[in-house]
Every structure is written in C-alpha cells, then in structure tokens.
C-alpha cells in the first residue's frame, strides 16, 4: 500500500507543476479540472488506504534526507488513524472546494495560477498530515503557510490583500519560530524526531524540559490555528478568494495546529496542558464575542473559525485529542459549507456587508438551504454532526475539567448559535436588499450539497448509534456509552438561547439589558466590535518599535559603523595632509636650507675669485711669508 501513500501528496504536486509551468496554455476550465482530478485521485487513494488503517495497521515509508546515516534527519510518510482522518478531511473537502472554485473563479485573469496554488497547498497539507517526523512536518508547515500567503494576496492589486498576506505569513512565522526552537531542542535533547517515539521520551526527558518543548511546539500551533495572541492574521486573511477562506482558513490549514498538538500530545505535561486549555478557552470566548459584533459576513465566519478552533484547543487541553479531532472533522464540513455559502452570496451580489444584504432566501434557495444546515449543525442541534462532536467535548469538560468549564463552554455555545443565526437571518431573511441575487451555477451548488450531507451526517460516525467508529479509529477506548441526557438538554437550551438572542438582538435590535447596565454593555460592545484593539496594541507595542529599531539600527549602521570606517579613512587623509605639510615645511626645508647655506657662502667668497693669476700668486707669497713668520 505504500505507493498509494506516496501518490496522495504527489498527485496534487504534479498538478501544481503542470499548472505553474504551462497553465496559461490550458483553457480556463481545464486548469481547474486538472486540480480537481488530482485531488479526487488523492481522495481515492485515501479511501484505498481505509481498509488497512481501520484494521489498525500503520503504513510507513522513509528515505534519507539531510544525512545518510543519522535517522534524525530522515524523511518519512506514515499513516495511522489520526492522519488518515485528516487525509480524508483534506482530500474530501479539498476536492469539493476545488470543484466549487471552477465556478467561483470563472473569468479571473489568473485562473490557472489559482488552481496551481490550490494544488500546491493540498500537496503540502497532505505532506504535513502524512509526515511521521517533525522535519517533514515543519517543511510542509512552512509550505502551507506560503500557499496561504500566495492565496490570500491572490488579488494582489488590492493593497489590503497584499498587506493581509504578508501579515498572515509573518504572524504565523512567529509561531513557526517557536515550533522550530521546539524541534531543535527535541532533536538535541531527545535524539529523535519520530512521532512514534514521542511516547518513549516521557520517561527519558525531565518534566521541565518536556514542558518547555511542548510549549514551544504549542506556540507553533497557536500561530497556525490563530489562537490568542497570534489570531490577528485570520480575519485579515478573508481578503483572499472565498474558496481559499473555506479550504485553508476554515477547514484544513488552520486545523493543522490542532492536528499538531493532537499528534504530539505525549509530550505535553499537565502544566502545558493547562496552558493549552487556558489559551483555547480564552480564544473560544473572546473570538465568539467579536463574531457577534462583526458586520462583514466573511469576518463573522473568520472569528467563528477562531472561536471553534479555540474549542478544539480546549478539548486538547483536557487531553481529549480524539474529541478535538472529531470536532475538527465536523467543523471542516460545516465551516467550509458556511464559507462556500457566503461565497455564493458574494458571487451573486458582490456584497459582503450584512447591512446591505437580506431576503436572499427566495433568489438563492439552495444556498439558503445548505447554509441553514451548516448553521444548525454548528449550533449543535441534535442530531446533526456538530451536536455529536460538541457534546462529546462538553461531556469531557464536565468529567475531566474544572466545574466552571462546562458553564464557560455553554456560554460559548450560546454565542456560536447567536452569531451564526444572526448571519443567516440577516442574509437570507428580512426585507430583500437592493442587490438582486441569483442562484449560483450547478458547479458551485453541487459541492455545497455534498458538504451539506457531510455537515449533517459525518457526526454519526462518532455517535453511539454507530458505536463510535471514528473515535476508535483515533485510538480512543474509554467512551461514554449512550447519549448523556443532561448534556443534551443543556446544549439544546444553549442553542435555543442563542437563537433567541440572534432573533431579538441581532435582527430585531431589541435591547435586552436593563438601563443601568447599558453604558457598560455599550462599552463592551465597542471593545468587541473593535476586536479588543489587539491590532492597535500590536501596532503600538511590537510593529512600531520593531520598525523603529530597524530604522534606528540602519541609522546606527550608516552613522556609527560606516561613520567609523569613513572616519578612519578621513583621519588617514587628515594625517596624510599633516604629514605632507610637515614634509614640505620641515624635512624639505632642512635639505633646501643646507643647499642655500652653501650657496650663500659661495656668493660671499665670489669676490675672492678674480681669475687673475697674479693676485693668486700674491696671496700665495704673502701667505707663505706670513706662515713662515708665524712658524718661526
């Protein structure tokens, strides 16, 4: 079965290579179908793997990469229950979304380029999921970040899109740096980067070391899965085409953080799980409140994604990796569907402000129907998919978490229902907006219908009615048998409360708060509507100082260091000038002075030289006489 393992990521990669090199020579729909075919083939290969994986078999293939001998630096692909589930999500949702994009992206000048990036993304994401080793995981982790960057800024003529892509890449790269540090530490301290060897490290490594490494790895997950405090890139990422938002920023890539933590859960100590829990819960609640106040339909969904990812992180914090993955699966279906529905609306009306939308139910019945299914599923209404996964998490919170956790999660559930129905009601109900919508073409509706099926029914695979095959696949053995009725009641109550809130406050604009509390409520609302000013704080505390430091260092480089070099040069020149002067005024004058002294003496003696021999002789004679007189 190992060839199938290789084909899964290689097929989309081949599609990418084909599309990036000669995509422009293909007619527009052909380029799209190439990507769809590759993804569908990957999905087929995944299905082919289902049988051995369900039997509990682990398939693996490895080859040397960075070192011929050292097993730490090998690459390997492996598939077990956890990665198979992710494979199914990525290839399944990916195929649907690629199909949908054929219709959505029609007429775009860079049509083949879009599908090339999409194929590259799927290849990297599949590589990430299949990696049995931190090294390949990290490589693919960066590559999906790159694809996210390329696709967010796909319409790069919009400055906002260009800026959003960059913000996404850099923000996640901060998390990636943490992940890289964790990997380096693990390689050095643990001596292995194999995922299947992680459990063994619990005995060999010290508790503090494990905590540190696991928190660094978690930092990577925080960045990729848009958890507080690195969540700021995801809402901006909505500048990209909507299918991209559905695939990358809802269903798959952002879930990679969840997958990473689930995969490396053996490394997490109770202390680091506390951190995971706290971050997840904070993200779940904070993003939920922001989603309640957003008026751009894609941003509502973006914050809803952040919030749902927070819920999965909370489950991971409880140690329930299987439940988090279960919710990831159902979430992939219903959130992708919500995005595709929103994309359908945007495609039809070219409008994404809630205030200018409404009453689209009649013009777009199919879209409205699938959107409703997704919304109900996300609200956790019995017996749709979202119910099973969310209730499993609530149950785990009740059993394993602190007593207040269940309450907090129920509050989150209320908000979930409230914002998603606020969105649904204001888009599809109420007075028709000026934009005349029309139903999207079949190529877009059909994938939505398939996903709606998933959003409704996938959860059954984790339900007690079918004896939890999904959870068994993920290696969970102790499962609450049957349906826990109190939790069912609570969550239904929460959904009802959310629905009521969405209707009365979101649509009818009622003011449920007593007058005394209204100023407080208004202030809270303003905060949430401004996303708690996180972007502004980052601008002020991180980006501003960073740019100032860059400029300051640049000036330092130019003035001080280069100045020192230039100064040394100038000092050398000044010294030369001074030396030249010394040379001219002192040394040269000494030489010339000697000569002129001799010349002066000669001029003085000139008059003696008359040239008349007699005078010389006279001098000689007189001198002889004088000398002889003296010597006498």
């Amino acid at each position, binding site marked *: 079965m190992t060839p199938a393992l290789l084909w899964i990521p290689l097929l989309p990669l081949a599609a990418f290579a084909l599309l990036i090199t000669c995509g422009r020579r293909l007619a527009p729909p052909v380029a799209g179908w190439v990507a769809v075919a590759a993804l569908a083939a990957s999905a087929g290969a995944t299905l082919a793997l289902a049988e051995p994986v369900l039997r509990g078999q682990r398939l693996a293939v490895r080859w040397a990469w960075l070192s011929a001998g050292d097993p730490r630096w090998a690459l390997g692909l492996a598939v077990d229950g956890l990665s198979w589930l992710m494979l199914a999500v990525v290839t399944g949702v990916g195929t649907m979304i690629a199909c949908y994009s054929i219709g959505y992206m029609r007429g775009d000048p860079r049509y083949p380029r879009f599908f090339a990036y999409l194929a590259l993304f799927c290849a990297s994401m599949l590589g990430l999921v299949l990696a049995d080793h931190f090294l390949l995981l990290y490589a693919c982790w960066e590559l999906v970040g790159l694809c996210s960057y390329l696709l967010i800024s796909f319409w790069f003529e919009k400055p906002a899109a260009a800026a959003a892509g960059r913000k996404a890449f850099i923000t996640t790269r901060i998390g990636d740096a943490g992940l890289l540090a964790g990997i380096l530490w693990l390689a050095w301290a643990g001596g292995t980067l194999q995922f299947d060897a992680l459990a063994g490290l619990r005995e060999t490594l010290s508790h503090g070391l494990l905590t540190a490494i696991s928190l660094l790895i978690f930092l990577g997950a925080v960045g990729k899965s848009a958890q507080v405090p690195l969540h700021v890139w995801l809402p901006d990422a909505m500048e990209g085409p909507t299918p991209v938002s559905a695939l990358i920023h809802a269903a798959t890539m952002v879930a990679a953080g969840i997958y990473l933590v689930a995969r490396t859960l053996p490394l997490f100590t109770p202390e680091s799980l506390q951190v995971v829990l706290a971050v997840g819960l904070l993200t779940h609640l904070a993003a939920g409140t922001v989603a309640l106040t957003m008026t751009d339909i894609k941003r509502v969904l973006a914050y809803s994604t952040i919030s749902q990812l927070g819920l999965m992180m909370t489950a991971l914090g409880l140690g329930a990796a299987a439940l988090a993955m279960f919710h990831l699966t159902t979430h992939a279906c219903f959130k992708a569907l919500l995005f595709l529905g929103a994309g359908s609306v945007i495609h039809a009306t070219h409008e994404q402000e809630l205030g200018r939308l409404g009453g689209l139910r009649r013009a777009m019945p199919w879209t409205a129907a699938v959107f409703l299914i997704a919304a109900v599923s996300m609200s956790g209404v019995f017996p749709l998919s979202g119910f099973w996964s969310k209730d499993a998490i609530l149950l785990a919170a009740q059993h394993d978490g602190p007593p207040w956790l269940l309450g907090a999660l129920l509050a989150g559930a209320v908000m979930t229902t409230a914002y998603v129905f606020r969105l649904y009601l204001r888009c599809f109900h109420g007075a028709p907006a000026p934009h005349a919508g029309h139903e999207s073409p079949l190529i877009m509706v059909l994938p939505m219908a398939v996903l709606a099926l998933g959003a409704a029914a996938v959860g059954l695979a984790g339900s007690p009615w079918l004896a939890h095959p999904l959870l068994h696949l993920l290696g969970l053995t102790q499962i609450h048998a049957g349906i826990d009725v109190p939790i069912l009641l609570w969550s239904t109550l929460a959904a009802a409360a959310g629905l009521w809130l969405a209707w009365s406050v979101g649509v009818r604009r009622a003011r449920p708060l007593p007058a005394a509390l209204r100023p407080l409520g208004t202030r809270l609302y303003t905060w949430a509507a401004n996303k708690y000013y996180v972007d502004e704080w980052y601008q002020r505390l991180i980006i501003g100082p960073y740019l100032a430091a860059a400029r300051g260092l640049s000036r330092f480089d130019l003035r001080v260091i280069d100045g020192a070099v230039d100064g040394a040069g100038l000092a050398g020149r000044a010294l030369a000038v001074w030396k030249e002067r010394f040379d001219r005024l002192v040394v040269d004058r000494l030489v010339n002075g000697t000569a002129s002294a001799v010349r002066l003496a*000669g001029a003085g*003696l*000139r*008059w*003696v*030289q*008359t*040239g*008349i*021999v*007699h005078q010389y*002789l*006279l001098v000689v*004679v007189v001198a002889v006489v004088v000398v002889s007189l003296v010597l006498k």
Partner: protein
Amino acid sequence: MSVRLILLLSHALFALGVYGVLTRRHAIGLLLSIELILNAAALNFVLFSRAFGHVEAQAFALFIIALAACEAVVGLAIVIGLARHAHTVFADQVDLLKG
C-alpha cells in the same frame, strides 16, 4: 767663496723669480720667472750638499732640473693652447675662473 755669499745669490735669484711671477703679464715671462725660482732652489740644494757633505741633495738638484724641463714643456703647451683659444698670452686677460 763662502756659503753665505752663495746663499745670498740663491735668495736673490729666488726674490727675482717671485718678483717676476708677480709682475710679469706675459705668460712666457711667468714661465721664465718660475724657472728662476726653481734654479734658486737647485742652487740651494747644491750649496748645502757641499757644505754638509750630503750626496742626496745633489740628486734633488738633478730632479729639479728634470722637473723644470717638464714644467717648461707643459707650461709652453698651455701657453700655445691659450694663444690658440683665447688669442692672448697675457695672464691677466684670462679670467675664466673668476667667480
């Protein structure tokens, strides 16, 4: 003849020579005067040789005669050169060495 008289003679000769050197303008006259000075010296040598019994001094007298002959040759050659190039044989008219 006494030594004193001959000594007087040689001194007279010498003084005559010096006088001639200092006063003669003609180059040949100068040469003749120098000849006189040399002969005065030679006379002295011969005189002292006889008076003190030294033979070597007579040898010096012979030397001087030879020297005088050489001197006359060189001197006359200079004079001829002078006459050819400077067209004069008067010593005071040749002042090329005047500083």
